Every structure is written in structure tokens, then in C-alpha cells.
């Protein structure tokens, strides 16, 4: 099991610099060393690749930079591998061939910052295809308010492929409740290839935080990244800033965060289970699941005052306490929830139509899952035992004991069952934490955030690991990078959908519990060069 020394040695051998600070190892190396070191960390040491972050540091030190973020889940370490790039012509070597999970984030860095990657094809990922050339929103000289001329806006049209049938799915489609576009190529009933064009929900969150917000306001902005797992994002941001600034957060606040995080996991899992049954044509299961889910909304409202977008996180603590009365109400509500849920789910997953359509469809083999760096229940259903709550403990999870369900089948059924088991685990975590809730303040007395510090944090959202990277600046984050779990899971759909029946496509897409609003803050999709673009601009 590699420890801090092994990672430090990687930089030392090649004459790089390093700093080990808390649980994070920062390595600064020459751009030409990025690829071999990333290869070693990912393929030899078996660390998870989380994301890469491009930063425009020209106002600070006259350089661009690229940082690859890894986590070593066995030793609980964060590894930030950084390189400074030329300010005029930022070029970095691509690591996507040795770390396939880095494919999207490199394209994103190209789109948003204009960093070129050598040794790969570069294309638009996040910004619309009609976005003006050479304008990169995350460069510091770009004003967050400058809008392109929307009269230029056109839909992208894609050429149909002759040898196979094409089934467009989206961007507005009854099986999807968010705008995203899938193109399924079929031969008869079988799907032979998939193309995804998302990023319809790119709202410019990172730029907004870097130009208009202050540290505390970003918590509320982070919550609006996603309406389903928003609290994970705001907790992740707050923890990252606290780690960077060394803020001492009271235990009680950490317990409250963990409790609310688990409430959010409950509501998210129940939501997905309901939607999955709906897509299988089992609407009774859908309606009952959502009836049960309503109890979690009552819980959330009781604990935070709001059904969604709770708004209780701040850097340094939380804004709302849990008193004895709430405690007993939460416990009795949880009891009712477990009883209801057990009854509904036992009937639902043993219904013959549900069982047959889930079992053996949408298989993701373990090796593909590791290579693509999938997260959360998708990884755990494919036999990868990883859960940030246990591996990289944050908030108050070290005080709770829980099991991480792992299945090896990798099919849609396994992904559903992982979530079913996690519901019971979450209920047990909430009960344990409420029981152990320590006394004390809920907000740190002093929150001072010096500029130039880096904080990286992973939080296990219902869909997998969220990662936030914060480089502190003057009064607001200088650079804030968010990577949501769906971002890592979507590329795996190509593997899951291939050679499946067309009718199973919607449930397979839903089985990763895609959350496009999280993913799309950033940008684009690759199509493996199989799709030629038609003359665009003809239609709205």
C-alpha cells in the first residue's frame, strides 16, 4: 500500500517539488513528467482518478496550471499532481490514453481555459458548438456577464449513419426529466453504439463563484448545482475551504452535516427507485415509492426548514441546531419510513416484470468500471468496493458504523439492490449519529481564510463521489472546481448500452441515476469520430 513517501518520491525522482499537508500530497512537476507519473499513480498504485483542474494563474504567477487529482482510497490520501504551463500558449501532454477517466476533464479544460492537450483530439464539450472561437470563459480576463449573441443559437444537427438505424432520445423526451441528448444506433433491436450530447445545463457556476460571490455565499450557490444532491455539494465546498484555511469546525456541526447528508441520500435513493419502476412500466411501484419518499421530505423540512436546497451550511459550521424535540420526531418518522419502505420494496423488486427486466441488462464489467473511474452505486454494483464515507472519512462518519454493500453482477438489478441496502444503512447512520450527538456550539468562532491555499475534498453523494477543489483568493475562491459523480458515470453508459435491447436503454440510462444539472456546469461529449456533423445552422 503506497503511502506519502511513495508519492513524494515520484516527484523527487524527477526533480519536482512536493508538500504534504494534512491528508493531501501536493506534487509540482514539469509538464513532460505528468504522463509517466499519472500512469504510475493510476495503473500501478491503483489510486482513483477524480478529475483535473485547469487554472488561469496569470495574475498570480504568470502561468496557467493543470492539476490532476487522485485519491488513494486505501490509505485515505489525496494526491494533487500539478504542472505550470506557458502563459501565451498553454500546452500539456494528454494523459487520457493511460488514464481514460481523464478524457472529459481535459476537453473541459480546453473549452473553458484554452489549454491544449497534446496527443489527443480536441473538440467542444461544454460550450455550445456555435460559441465564438477563442473565447474561454474561465480565463480571468473574461467577464462573467458577457453573453454571446443568442440570435446565433442553433441546434446541432447530426448526420444519420447509413448502415445502422438511429434512435434519437432527447433533449426533451418523456423518459428524461432533464434536457440531455442520446443518440442510440441500432441494428434491429440491438443497440450498437451510443453518442451523448449533454451540457444543456451549463450555467457558469464556477465562473460566477470566482467573480461575484464571497466565501459564505458560495455555499448557497453550491447547493444550487443540483436540486437532488445539493447539500453534498455545499458540504463538500465548505469542507474544502475549511481544510484549506485550517478552520476548526465544532463536532456538533459535523454531526448535523452528516445527518442531513444521510437524509438527502434517503430521498435521492427513493426517488431513483421510483423512477426506475416507472421506466419499467410498473407505475404502482413508482407511486408508492414516491409516497414513502414524502416522509423524507418531511424529515428534511423538520431538520432544515426547507424541503430542498436546505441552506444550512456555512464555512465553519451550520446554521440550524437539532434539539431534543426534533430528535424524537426524526426517530419516529424514520421508524415509519423503514416499515413503509420494506413493504413496498419487497413487493416491487420481486414483481416478475421488474425482476426480469433488471436482471442481466446493462452489464458493466469490473475492469471497465475501474478503467473509466465510475463512482458510487455504479462502482459498487460492479464489484468495486469504494465509498468515500469509509475510505476518506469526513464530517462525522468516523463515529458511525455501517456496511458498504457490494455486488459483483454489474447489472441493473445489482445497481437497484445496492441502493435498497444503502437506504437501510442510511437510516441506521442517522439513528447512531442522533444518539451520539455531542453538545457544544454549531459554528466556529473565527473563520479566517488566507489567500493562496488549496483544499481538496471528496464527499460521497448518493450517486458517487463529488469532488471539490478550492484555491483560495481574496475574499472569494480564486478557483473553484466541481466534479459531480455523473460526470464519471456517463462514459460507462457506452459499455452498458452496447448490444442491449433498445427497450432496455431507458432503464439502463436511469440505473446510473444520472444527474445532468450537476454534470453540466461544465461542458461536452465525445463521439469517437463515428458521427459526422451535418451543415448546421439550418434549423432552430
Amino acid at each position: 500500500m503506497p503511502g506519502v513517501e511513495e508519492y513524494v518520491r515520484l516527484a523527487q525522482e524527477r526533480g519536482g517539488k512536493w508538500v504534504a499537508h494534512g491528508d493531501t500530497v501536493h506534487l509540482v512537476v514539469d509538464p513532460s513528467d505528468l504522463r509517466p507519473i499519472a500512469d504510475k499513480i493510476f495503473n500501478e498504485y491503483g489510486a482513483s482518478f477524480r478529475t483535473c483542474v485547469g487554472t488561469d494563474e496569470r495574475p498570480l504567477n504568470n502561468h496557467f496550471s493543470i492539476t490532476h487529482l487522485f485519491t488513494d482510497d486505501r490509505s485515505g490520501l489525496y494526491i494533487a499532481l500539478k504542472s505550470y504551463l506557458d502563459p501565451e500558449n498553454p500546452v500539456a501532454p494528454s494523459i487520457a490514453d493511460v488514464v481514460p477517466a481523464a478524457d472529459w476533464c481535459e476537453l473541459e479544460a480546453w473549452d473553458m481555459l484554452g489549454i491544449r492537450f497534446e496527443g489527443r483530439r480536441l473538440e467542444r464539450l461544454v460550450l455550445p458548438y456555435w460559441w465564438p472561437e477563442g473565447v474561454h470563459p474561465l480565463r480571468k480576463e473574461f467577464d462573467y456577464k458577457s453573453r454571446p449573441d443568442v440570435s446565433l443559437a442553433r441546434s446541432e444537427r447530426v448526420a444519420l449513419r447509413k448502415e445502422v438505424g438511429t434512435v434519437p432520445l432527447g433533449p426533451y423526451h418523456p423518459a428524461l426529466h432533464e434536457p440531455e441528448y442520446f443518440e442510440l444506433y441500432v441494428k434491429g433491436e440491438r443497440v450498437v453504439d451510443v453518442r451523448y450530447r449533454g451540457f444543456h445545463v451549463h450555467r457558469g457556476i464556477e465562473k460566477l463563484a470566482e467573480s461575484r460571490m464571497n466565501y459564505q455565499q458560495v455555499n448557497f450557490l453550491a447547493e444550487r448545482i443540483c436540486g437532488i444532491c445539493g447539500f453534498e455539494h455545499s458540504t463538500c465546498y465548505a469542507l474544502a475551504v475549511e481544510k484549506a484555511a485550517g478552520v476548526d469546525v465544532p463536532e456538533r456541526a459535523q454531526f448535523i452535516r452528516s445527518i442531513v447528508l444521510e437524509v438527502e441520500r434517503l430521498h435521492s435513493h427513493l426517488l431513483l427507485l421510483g423512477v426506475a419502476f416507472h421506466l419499467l412500466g410498473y407505475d404502482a411501484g413508482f407511486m408508492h415509492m414516491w409516497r414513502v419518499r414524502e416522509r423524507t421530505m418531511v424529515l428534511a423540512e423538520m431538520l432544515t426548514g426547507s424541503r430542498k436546497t436546505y441552506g444550512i451550511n456555512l464555512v465553519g459550521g451550520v446554521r440550524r441546531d437539532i434539539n431534543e424535540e426534533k430528535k424524537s420526531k426524526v426517530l419516529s418518522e424514520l421508524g415509519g419510513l423503514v416499515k413503509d419502505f420494506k413493504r413496498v420494496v419487497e413487493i416491487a423488486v420481486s414483481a416478475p416484470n421488474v425482476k426480469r427486466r433488471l436482471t442481466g441488462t446493462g452489464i458493466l464489467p469490473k475492469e471497465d468500471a475501474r478503467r473509466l473511474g465510475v463512482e458510487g452505486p455504479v462502482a459498487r454494483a460492479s464489484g468495486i468496493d469504494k465509498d468515500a464515507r469509509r475510505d476518506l472519512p469526513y464530517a462525522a462518519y468516523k463515529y458511525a458504523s455501517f456496511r458498504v454493500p457490494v455486488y459483483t453482477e454489474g447489472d441493473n438489478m445489482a445497481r437497484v439492490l445496492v441502493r435498497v441496502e444503502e437506504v437501510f444503512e442510511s437510516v441506521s447512520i442517522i439513528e447512531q449519529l442522533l444518539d451520539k450527538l455531542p453538545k457544544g456550539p454549531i459554528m466556529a468562532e473565527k473563520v479566517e481564510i488566507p489567500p493562496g491555499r488549496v483544499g481538496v475534498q471528496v464527499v460521497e453523494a448518493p450517486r458517487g463521489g463529488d469532488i471539490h477543489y478550492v484555491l483560495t483568493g481574496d475574499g472569494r475562491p480564486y478557483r473553484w472546481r466541481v466534479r459531480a459523480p455523473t460526470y464519471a458515470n456517463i462514459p460507462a453508459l457506452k459499455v452498458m448500452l452496447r448490444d442491449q435491447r433498445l427497450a432496455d436503454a431507458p432503464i439502463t440510462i436511469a440505473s446510473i441515476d444520472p444527474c445532468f444539472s450537476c454534470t453540466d456546469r461544465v461542458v461536452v461529449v465525445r463521439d469517437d469520430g463515428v458521427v459526422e456533423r451535418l451543415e448546421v445552422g439550418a434549423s432552430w
Partner: protein
Amino acid sequence: MSESVKRSIWVYHLNTGGCNACDIEVLDALTPWFDAERFGVKLVPSPRQADVILLTGPVTIEALPKVVNAIEAMPRPRYIIALGSCGVGGGIWHDTYSTIGGVRELLKVLEARGVKVDGVYYVPGCPVRPESILYAVALFKGLVEKKVKSEVAYSE
């Protein structure tokens, strides 16, 4: 209130780039606890069958052409119920580079493209509560009174 849509309202849910919170509350309003179906509200899979569009999100520039297409595909009379802070006025993203800023800006684009909209209802909230979605539907059907009595002045 609408004279032309007197009976069951068929709604089409159009997410123009929102964060999902309003969208799950829309679904929530249709499931047993809130049960919007008792007012005859039915979610339909295509804008061509819809009486009303439930619009959420700040209208991102990527989604804009597709949103215009969807609204254009709707038969007249066209009604839009804009849900949530984002749908109503762009929310916190009202001035960022990649959104156009809510339904008011969208109406300008629609007008420029010659797409007529017969009425817009605004339901604020971040996110909207299912109760307020039900209230909007009831208002649309003429079952309840409008809460804001005078015209709201917008600062441009």
C-alpha cells in the same frame, strides 16, 4: 384565468437547464401525496398535446434553440407557467454568460421569432413547493384568486 382550457389540463414539463429541484417537485405534485391529478392535470410526453408548458430553469444558451422548438410545436392557445426563481427571472444565474435569464428574456426571443404566447403565469420559489404548483394550476383554472393584486414593476 383561461376560458379556452376549461377541462382537464394537459401539461408538458420543460426543463430549460434548471437544477432539478423544481422538476422533482413537479413530479412530486403528481404523485399520491399531493395528487394534482384530482384537478385533471396530466403530464403528457409531447408539447404537441399540451395545453400548458411548465417551464423550469434559467434557459441556458445550449437549450435555447430546443426550448423554442418545443414551444413552437405547441398548439394555440399557448400558456406557460414559469416555475421557480430561475424560470421566473433567471434566479442567481440571471446575468451569467451561459444563460439568457428566465422566461422574460425567452419571451423576447420568441417574439423575435414570431412565436406567440397567450399567457404567462409566474410561480416563484427556490425551489417551488408542490403546494404552490397546485395553487398555480388552480389559479389557471379559475378556482382561486390571484395573490398579487397590482402589476409588478420590473427594473430593466
